[in-house]
């Protein structure tokens, strides 16, 4: 449990700064620091056991099926890293308290910092590689926030993005690598994986896994060729740089290489990839560091170089080298963090980090000078400081390691790297602190308060102490960690003097001498360096990412540009192609069903339909004519239904078709009456081809279907058999609609009701003030209008037809259960009858004579239908269970009473209300265009004395 708590504490701590910041910066820092201190304490409590060689474990089941569990373990390596992370973290918290300016949001800073700290601790304590991955990616995210902390700096934003991209990408690669590893072993638990070296290295997937994992490690640790992001991350506040980019995050890659060392190392692949990358990184970054004028950039590249060094050591794959690597990790953390903090102090005090503008600070900032010098000398590998110790050991290992057939290149390059290291370390001291005091510092520098230099001073002391007494101060830790890395019991022997014949001695001497010479000739070399064209990392990154982003935008926008016509064409072709593929890959037998002979009337109807269909394609630009043709099609299809024994369908088809044409006519009033020619002839031909392919598909499919019998008995047999006895109706279609599949109908009327609501809401939106409303107010009819809006003959005829049609509606409704008809058709018939009334005297006139609440009709319809269904609950039977009875009531004949009829009433009302609400909406739009409302049913009424003659007589005209 305690291990999980150690990992969790920083995350819990991340919540506190935001809350505590109101209590002041000191309180905020104190709380944050004490959380870290607590974690450190807990770690310390576990240390004795670990140092004894035990492995402390905490296992919490999380997602067993995935193998992702919150398992933690603590061994020497974990202890070393966790200690570094928490210890240096504590120092950074202290340092940052004084470093951040008043305007910087400190709560946010500490929150991010603690998130990061938690992620790092999580990485080093994870006993589950999936869990490790979670923490791994979290470091990328939290460092993204930390690097971009100063949002107003473009470098910050870009640096953050670059860091996130590179380390994020590496992290993704590592996910794959880790999952491969887990799949080879059959477990994602590290402690299991670490036991399976042979299995892993024998696997075909070893190399991919290795490469993918190393991608993650190299990107995070800024190893060649992924080193470029790190300097740009220096836009972060210095405490961040010190923490992330020296002590911790960049070491996550190293940690992981060390962690996986027992199972991944020792193969030629490992050696050539890891050692080479490390070596190249070490030399190249050291060289770059020498030419950086920005203090933090110099330190950043030096960090890269030292990481390369450690990587190289791990790459050697020997126990000895690994031990040295561990030792150097400790040393580097101490001197580099101290250096970063020192650089931060310089920046903070002198308001510049530019070496060209610095120099002579030795006397102005003696304390800082002392700390920085100790650390820098250690970095240069000057005895007796700790950096010297590990560097000597490193050179020794390099000397003894052959790169392929070549025995000396490794040693040579390592020496050259050390040489550069000496040069830039001395340059750091010389160009910052030595030389004459200048009078042009941006700000008068002096040593900061104790709070700010305490942390680096502490680290400098560590540098000295380890340097002087390595065995006492660090060997126990090195041993524990190195044993954990290598899986063997390591007993390190760290001494300052290896004898005169130790090659490392001379390599060291050469490095120091050469380094000083380089520094001496720095001015000329710098000129040469500046004259050499170099690829700029950010430029390269931008050159890759920006065009890619731009390309993405172009491709995406070009594909999804709102060209509906293309979308449909693609969809059509895709559907036909996929369906055809499905057909071709299956077995097909031609149908055996007897064909129906062709008779004359259907043939004529077919001809009419074909002609009308072709005509629609040809004449579609004439919109009114198109509607007339649609009317013909509707008629022919209704006829088809009638001919093939579907009277209900014929009734529905014809009434729906009329209602739809009416609706389109109403809309067409406002729309252009012609469709312009907009597609070229080839485009039209292409469209026709696309449509034709689909048409052929439909024809083929329907022919195939019609010419075969059902493969199984259709469930319709049951409907036929049970409609009368079970459903109480002889119109089987209607019984299906209101009973067997009444639930479908319930959904269907709701569709209709919603349609009306949508139309109403849309109308409201259009009529609300805005461009639509303005356009309506300014609307002019595009065709000349005839006089006599409401001719008398129609009005008078409607006075008869409307009542009769209503009666027909009732008739169709009532007989629906037994004969063709039903609520839906009845609703449409009544609607159509009312439309006739509207056509006769106008919608508004009719509505004024008798107002119906169409919303209420729709809602009532839905509720009645629902209530019929719910009513069956009372009887303990499922929703929509119908009941019917035959009632004899003297003197009437026996008649049937069915709950289905009530349901059908709901259908009827919904249909009616929906159609009416739609018409009402359209009418309101028309009225907004300036249409007036008549007060009389028709325009010319000779009986009322309101004729023109009378008006003439009264002189009104």
């Amino acid at each position, binding site marked *: 449990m305690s291990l999980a708590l150690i990992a969790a504490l920083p995350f819990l701590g991340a919540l506190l700064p935001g809350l505590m910041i109101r209590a002041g910066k000191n309180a905020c820092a104190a709380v944050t620091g004490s959380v870290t201190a607590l974690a450190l304490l807990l770690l310390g409590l576990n240390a004795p056991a670990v140092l004894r060689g035990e492995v402390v474990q905490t296992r919490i089941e999380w997602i067993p099926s995935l193998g992702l569990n919150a398992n933690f373990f603590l061994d020497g390596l974990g202890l070393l890293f966790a200690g570094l992370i928490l210890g240096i973290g504590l120092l950074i918290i202290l340092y940052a308290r004084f470093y951040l300016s008043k305007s910087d949001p400190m709560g946010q800073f500490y929150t991010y910092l603690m998130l990061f700290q938690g992620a790092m601790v999580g990485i080093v304590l994870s006993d589950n590689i999936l869990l490790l991955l979670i923490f791994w990616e979290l470091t990328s995210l939290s460092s993204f926030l930390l690097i971009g902390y100063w949002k107003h700096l473009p470098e910050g934003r870009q640096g953050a993005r670059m860091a996130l991209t590179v380390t994020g990408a590496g992290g993704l690669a590592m996910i794959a690598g880790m999952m491969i590893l887990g799949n080879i072993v059959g477990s994602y638990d590290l402690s299991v994986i670490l036991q399976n070296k042979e299995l892993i290295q024998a696997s075909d997937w070893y190399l991919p896994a290795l490469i993918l994992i190393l991608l993650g490690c190299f990107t995070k640790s800024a190893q060649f060729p992924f080193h470029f992001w790190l300097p740009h991350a220096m836009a972060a506040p210095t405490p961040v740089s010190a923490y992330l980019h020296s002590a911790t995050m960049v070491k996550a890659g190293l940690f992981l290489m060390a962690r996986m060392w027992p199972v991944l190392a020792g193969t030629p692949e490992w050696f050539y990839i890891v050692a080479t990358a490390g070596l190249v990184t070490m030399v190249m970054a050291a060289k770059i560091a020498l030419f950086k004028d920005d203090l933090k950039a110099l330190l950043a590249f030096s960090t890269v170089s030292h990481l390369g060094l450690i990587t190289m050591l791990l790459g050697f794959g020997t126990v000895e080298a690994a031990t040295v690597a561990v030792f150097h990790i400790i040393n580097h953390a101490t001197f580099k963090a101290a250096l970063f903090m020192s650089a931060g102090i310089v920046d903070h005090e002198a308001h510049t980090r530019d070496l060209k503008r610095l120099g002579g600070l030795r006397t102005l900032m003696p304390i800082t000078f002392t700390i920085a010098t100790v650390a820098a000398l250690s970095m240069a590998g000057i005895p007796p400081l700790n950096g010297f110790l590990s560097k000597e050991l490193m050179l020794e290992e390099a000397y003894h390691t052959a790169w392929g057939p070549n025995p000396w290149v490794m040693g040579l390059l390592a020496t050259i790297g050390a040489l550069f290291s000496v040069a830039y370390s001395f340059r750091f001291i010389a160009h910052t602190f030595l030389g004459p005091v200048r009078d042009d510092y941006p700000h008068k520098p002096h040593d900061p308060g104790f709070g700010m230099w305490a942390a680096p001073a502490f680290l400098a002391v560590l540098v000295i102490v380890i340097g002087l007494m390595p065995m006492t101060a660090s060997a126990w830790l090195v041993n524990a960690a190195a044993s954990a890395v290598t899986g063997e019991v390591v007993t390190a022997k760290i001494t300052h003097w290896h004898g005169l014949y130790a090659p490392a001695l001379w390599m060291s001497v050469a490095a120091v001498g050469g380094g000083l010479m380089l520094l001496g000739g720095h001015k000329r070399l710098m000129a040469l360096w500046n004259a050499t064209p170099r690829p700029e990392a950010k430029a390269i990154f931008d050159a890759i990412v920006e065009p890619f982003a731009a390309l993405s935008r172009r491709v995406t926008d070009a594909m999804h540009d709102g060209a509906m016509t293309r979308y449909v064409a693609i969809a059509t072709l895709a559907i036909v192609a996929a369906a055809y593929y499905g057909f071709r890959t299956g077995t097909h037998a031609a149908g055996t069903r007897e064909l129906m002979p062709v008779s004359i009337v259907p043939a004529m109807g077919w001809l009419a339909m074909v002609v009308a269909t072709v005509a629609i394609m040809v004449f579609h630009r004439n919109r009114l004519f198109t509607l007339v043709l649609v009317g013909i099609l509707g008629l022919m299809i209704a006829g088809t239904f009638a001919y093939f024994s579907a009277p209900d369908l014929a009734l529905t088809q014809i009434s729906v078709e009329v209602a739809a044409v009416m609706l389109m006519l109403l809309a067409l009033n406002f729309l252009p009456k012609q469709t312009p020619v907009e597609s070229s002839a080839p485009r039209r031909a292409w469209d026709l081809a696309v449509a034709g392919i689909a048409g052929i598909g439909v024809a083929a499919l329907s022919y195939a279907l019609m010419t075969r019998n059902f493969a199984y008995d259709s469930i319709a047999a049951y409907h036929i058999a049970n409609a009368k006895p079970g459903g109480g109706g002889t119109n089987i279609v209607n019984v299906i609609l209101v009973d067997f599949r009444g639930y479908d109908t319930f959904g269907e009327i709701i569709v209709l009701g919603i349609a009306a609501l949508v139309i109403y809401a849309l109308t409201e939106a259009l009529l609300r003030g805005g461009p639509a409303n303005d356009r309506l107010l300014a609307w002019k009819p595009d065709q000349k209008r005839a006089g006599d809006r409401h001719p008398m003959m129609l009005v008078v005829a409607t006075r008869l037809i409307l009542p009769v049609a*209503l009666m027909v509606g009732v008739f169709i409704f009532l007989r629906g259960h037994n004969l063709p008809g039903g609520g839906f058709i009845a609703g449409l018939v009544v609607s159509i009858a009312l439309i006739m009334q509207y056509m006769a*005297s106008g919608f508004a006139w009719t509505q004024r004579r008798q107002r119906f609440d169409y919303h209420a009709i729709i809602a009532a319809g839905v509720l009645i239908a629902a209530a019929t269904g719910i009513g069956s609950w009372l009887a303990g039977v499922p929703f929509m269970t119908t009941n019917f009875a035959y009632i004899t009531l003297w003197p009437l004949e026996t008649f049937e009473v069915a709950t289905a009829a009530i349901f059908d009433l709901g259908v009827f009302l919904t249909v009616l209300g929906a159609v009416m609400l739609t018409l009402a909406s359209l009418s309101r739009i028309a009225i907004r265009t300036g249409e007036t409302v008549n007060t009389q049913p028709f325009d*010319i009424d000779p009986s009322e004395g309101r*004729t023109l003659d009378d008006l003439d007589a009264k002189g009104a005209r």
Partner: protein
Amino acid sequence: MLQRLFPHPLLSLLLFVTWMLLVNTFKIGSLVMAGILATVIPLLTAAYWTNRPKVRNIPAFAAYVLLVLWDIIIANIQVAKIILFYRSDQIKSAWIPVPIDLKTPEAITLLAGTITMTPGTVTADMSSCGRVLLIHSLHAPDPDAIRDDIKSRYEARLKRIFE
């Protein structure tokens, strides 16, 4: 009371008959239903038909209906003859304004409808004052005769029925 229950007695009667025609069977239940609907539907639609006309002379109305039915048959034969046997240039179409004395909309509509259904004439329009119908005649060698025929054969009868 009865007036309010049956605002349009004739309409109610018509609807009653219509229902019986619709159900196509003679049952007591149908009669009851017809009665209900013949009562309810006129009530529902009364708002759209306020100034109902009075048919004063029902036998005359019946006679008029029969006359028109007969004329329709004759008209059809005549039109058929024209369509089948006349050359295009032999057909002398004409527009004929027919001044009318009828005042009630129902009567005017009935007259206009009759004109359309009977020999070779179609009611096309009405003057803005409602006093003149515009008739199109398919074949009218003598337009005045047609106008007089309309006035005497139909309008006079309608005047007796409605006014």
